[in-house]
């Protein structure tokens, strides 16, 4: 795994506010709505649970593997799996193949669309930029993993410290 950046989701932090959803749809489509967003939030109101799902930019992307026309393919230079709307025939194979359910069919064109990490936006993807709780961050997965491992170490250190004091 390189140090290239990707979207990292920390589910426990998601407040379910859908700032990512409206930001994404406005940035890409110039209108606001869940149906034109490339990122989705699933909520269970009763138990107060929220879950954010977006493209993970799989290395062996199932969406690209099933695409019959080559419209959905990895742009290796950018490291982004993109859908070329001109080549897309709207067969929905990619949408069904995506393990996270984050490829949608556009209500206007009937063609598939997906996350492109807001390619070209200096501040990175809008969803991560606007996320108020840090549930979505745009970072290197390598660094995120290192931080996760370090957190375990800190836990042990703190437990040891508490033991000495106690």
């Amino acid at each position, binding site marked *: 795994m390189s140090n290239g950046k990707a979207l990292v989701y920390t589910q*426990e*932090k998601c*407040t*379910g*506010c*859908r*700032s990512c959803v*409206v*930001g994404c*749809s*406005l*940035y890409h*489509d*110039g*209108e*606001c*709505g*869940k*149906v*034109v967003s490339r990122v989705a939030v*699933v*909520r*269970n*109101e*009763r*138990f*107060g649970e*929220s879950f954010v799902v977006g493209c993970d930019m799989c290395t062996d992307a199932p969406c690209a593997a099933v695409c019959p026309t080559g419209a959905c393919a990895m742009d290796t230079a950018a490291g982004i799996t993109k859908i070329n709307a001109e080549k897309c025939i709207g067969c929905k194979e990619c949408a069904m193949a995506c393990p996270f359910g984050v490829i949608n069919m556009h*209500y206007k064109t009937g063609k598939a669309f997906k996350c492109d990490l807001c390619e070209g936006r200096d501040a990175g993807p*809008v969803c991560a*930029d*606007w996320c*108020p*709780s840090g549930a979505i961050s745009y970072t290197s997965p390598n660094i995120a993993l290192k931080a996760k491992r370090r957190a375990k170490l800190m836990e042990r250190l703190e437990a040891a410290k508490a033991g000495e004091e106690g």
Partner: protein
Amino acid sequence: MYGWSGKRLRVNLTTGEIKHEPLSYEYRRKWIGGRGMNSEVIYNEVPPNLDPLDPEARVCFGVGPISGTAAPASGRVTVSCKSPLTGGFGDSNMGGHWGAELKYAGYDQIIVQGKAKKPVYLWIDDDKVEIRDAAHVWGKFPREADQMIKQELGDEDIHIVLIGPAGENLVRFACTFNDVYRAAGRTGHGAVIGSKNLKGIAVRGSGTVKIARPKEFFDVCNRLRQTFKNDPMRKFLYEIGSLSLINVAVHDGWIGANNFQQGAHPDAHFMSGEEHSTTVLKHREGCFSCPICCGRFTEIKEGPYAGEYGGGPEYEHSVPTGPRVGVFEPNAIWHNMILTNNYGMDGIECGGTIATAMEWYQRGLITTKDTGGLELEWGNQEVVSKLIGMMAMREGFGDILADGASRAADRLGLGDEGHKYTMSTRGMTMPGDDPRGLGFAYGTGFAIGTRGGCDHLRALPSLELSGFMYPGLNTKIIGDERPVKPTTIVGKGYCTFYEENQKAMTDCLNVCCFTTHWSFAVLTADQVEYFNAVTGMDITEEEFMVIGERIVNLERAYWSRMLSGKREDTIPERYVKEPMPQGVPDQTNVGMTFPIQKTLPGYYKYRDYDLETGFPSERRLKMLGLDYVAKDLAPLRAKYNTDAEKKKKKYYY
């Protein structure tokens, strides 16, 4: 069409007729949306002498042109009716995701009228609208009904507005929920909805909100989102929620313990947001498109209430069902909050009414004979939690209290002495803030609030409260830095006037006032900017504020039509006459009273209210394009000041 959906839904539950009505450009330009459009409907369609629980009464759900967009916190819904609690104009708004969903379904407003023969709920699936049987969810808590309806309709992602058992039992301060825990609390429209045999409204929207100038709109939103990242108020609200106010309230003495007999109490610290965050907070919640996320989700882990869970707490909900009734044990307060949410009652009014009864009991106005054996001692949590259930189900003494404090005083025959302790104006009890020391503009707002007096969310003049966190802001907005001091009279008239108009606009756009009032990350200029970018209009800041003024005047005129005016612009006597006692050593407002008579004239001057009656003046009404309202009020001005009218005591209408 940009911003608006351009149509509203009118449902007549008596006849089953469902109509889609177009909203003209002029109408939208004049009333904007949400609170504005709702107020217009209530003024024109609900006569002042109609019983709020009559089938002919209306209940409106409104969203604004900005709802469902990327503008910060744009998911609110305004619910309006003629209030069964006060008998006057009433509205309330709630967060959650339902408002945005309604917009995506293609509506700016829903008007419900008539009464169904048996319990029903409404199912709005874009253009398809259906009235469905609700027998199986009638009597259920919102959390159960929500799940049952979702399963029945086969879609867990829809959003539902619901009332609880209290609304079904016509408790006069029953409220409405969406997304289970997001309540439109005040003024009791839950009872109006219940009186129509309507359990709720489920919505699924598959559309989008079209934006006139998307690039410009994205840039404004992006700028505001960046501002929020470093906003001082936002940090508090996200980290510890609105309960971050507890420690401030204790120090400054406005927590209103024991029905406002005490401003500060040392034990109140235990229910602070700081404590809550480290004990029972499960996680933080956000309403639609919100950059703040002040919502909490609580799970009680130990003690007699272990295992209970629910959305909240929030400052205004927790204080009346806690310190106001003398309860300071945090888990007990969270339990009371969960109970009122389950039954579907306004926590403020519920706590306020119990506190009133406790003070009657303390002063010997009522005894255990009246209460059916309940010992209403301050802090008797067992009785408080029992009474909440009895009120919701209208059982025993709870049935009397379910009519609200003022009506209960009359039902018990307690006379003026009883009314003195209801701590209410125009039939609605105070929120959890004592104006002695809290702020003089805030207190003025309590006296003149257009949804029944005593309401903090009408003017919400936080320029004097959180203004100090934004140096120079008062100067920028009202041209004077002095009003930033809460306990000064200077500039408070204009401060209340400005903030009241601004709040009206915030409610019309249906964005959250925490973005524009508590936090000042979004100023009026920013709102005008995003409003114009979304709708393609080019209105100026002055025009924008005039619309706010129009709405406030229309709502005020609703009260004027009921002969409620200057004499009713009061606050509970306690704030004026009883100096604040000492509760904690470092309390800042000891000995203070609130000089309402000194702050009101300044406010009247800017409002241009008629000095004799307190009604909106004819010249101002005409200037605001409300000629028909001026005509309605003309014969009433003289009537208000007749001797017979002057003698009447009006606690509610």
